[in-house]
């Protein structure tokens, strides 16, 4: 099998992986880097369960090739907490009841994290737009919007 060496920074750490270049980032993360928080829900960029940050921007890991991330930086749900402290979004998703089955949750949190980086005080309408690429089948989204707003308030206070 034809493989290539891929060097990338994942969750702040330099990693080097030998992988077929046509493999998607989703499976590079899941199979080769053992980062299983990034979920496979559709493999066509519709559900957003595989959302990660690529150089700070949310992307669907199922629609990025492993070879395309050589030399770039990826943050997954596992990389969101800092020094053992959960990201405010993670805590507020729990507290607001925004997690039911939780399969969509890592993707929703990654999209929300990117939103708060760019817009620390989003309106509900802005949150809805930022999360449109993340499907959730359990919650009906309301508590997700609440969680993001609560996290924004906390981040803003700090």
């Amino acid at each position, binding site marked *: 099998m034809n493989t290539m060496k891929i060097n990338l920074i994942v969750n702040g750490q330099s990693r080097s992986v030998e992988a077929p270049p046509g493999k998607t980032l989703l499976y590079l993360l899941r199979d080769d880097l053992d980062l299983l928080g990034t979920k496979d829900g559709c493999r066509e960029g519709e559900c957003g369960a595989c959302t990660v940050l690529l150089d700070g921007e*949310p992307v669907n890991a199922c629609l990025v*090739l492993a070879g395309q991330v050589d030399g770039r930086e990826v943050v997954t749900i596992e990389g969101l907490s800092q020094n053992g402290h959960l990201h405010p979004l993670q805590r507020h998703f729990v507290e607001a009841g925004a997690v039911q089955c939780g399969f969509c949750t890592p993707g929703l949190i990654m999209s929300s994290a990117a939103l708060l980086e760019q817009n620390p005080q989003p309106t509900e309408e802005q949150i809805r737009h930022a999360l449109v690429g993340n499907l959730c089948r359990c919650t009906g989204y309301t508590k997700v919007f609440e969680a993001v707003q609560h996290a924004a308030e906390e981040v803003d206070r700090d």
Partner: protein
Amino acid sequence: MMHELRLETPRSLAEASRILKETGGKVIAGGTDVIPQMRDGRFEANTLIDLSRLPDLDTIKEEGDFIVIGALANYTSIRQSQLLQETVPMLLEVAGLVGGLQTQNRGTIGGNVVNASPAGDTLPPLLALNAEVVLNNSDGERTIPLSDFLQGPGQTAIAPHELLSEIRFQKPPAGTKSTFLRLGNRRGMVISIVSAATMLLLDGGNKIEEVRIALGAVAPIPIRCPEAEALLQGQVLTEALIEQAAEMTVKAGSPIDDVRGTATYRQHGIKVLVRRGLLKLGGLR
């Protein structure tokens, strides 16, 4: 076979052209169309040529009377472009409607053009702008109108060893308004059932100096509506005239039935969207 696949990452357009000529590989940029196609086995290639690292092909800039959008400009950069906001706001509207943010961060305008889907949302606005596409190969480049480039669903005039490098169009005269409207079966992340791009320039007396109408998802390729444009040209914009023009645009399309909607609803939708677009641009509603 997919596992024998090689990935080439050229660092210049010339290198990309050379690799393309040598390998006959499949070009990929944002990957939002190519990767699902690859997964479905819809093309066979031993080599993928990743353009995403080519320098300077993602810029949006003015060149004299022209606006030039690099083929690698993604939807997010279009959505955030001050230049496009001031000159062709409908391109921002379109870019904000394509997929979710994840897709907007990856998908490129060049990919949408080359993919040539009848429902490709950037195509009606670009057709309305009389856009041209710049095609490169290892021997040089050529520029052809987008209307000649698009030949059918998924079919274009791109030659086997050519790359799309730029999309260019004349900057609309000051005061030109534009809008992109569409119908979908859901509010977020949806492929258009029917879409319409309209551009309008009025003089001080509400007379139409310039009007352009283009439709998506109502024919094998996105189309313009020359009869309706001719009817409107030079006339004073009124609701009655708009109604007449909207009626006329219905005949421009040849829609089909598919999972998203029937031809009947698409015909209905054309009329509604064209009417709404013109009313909105004319300040009549």
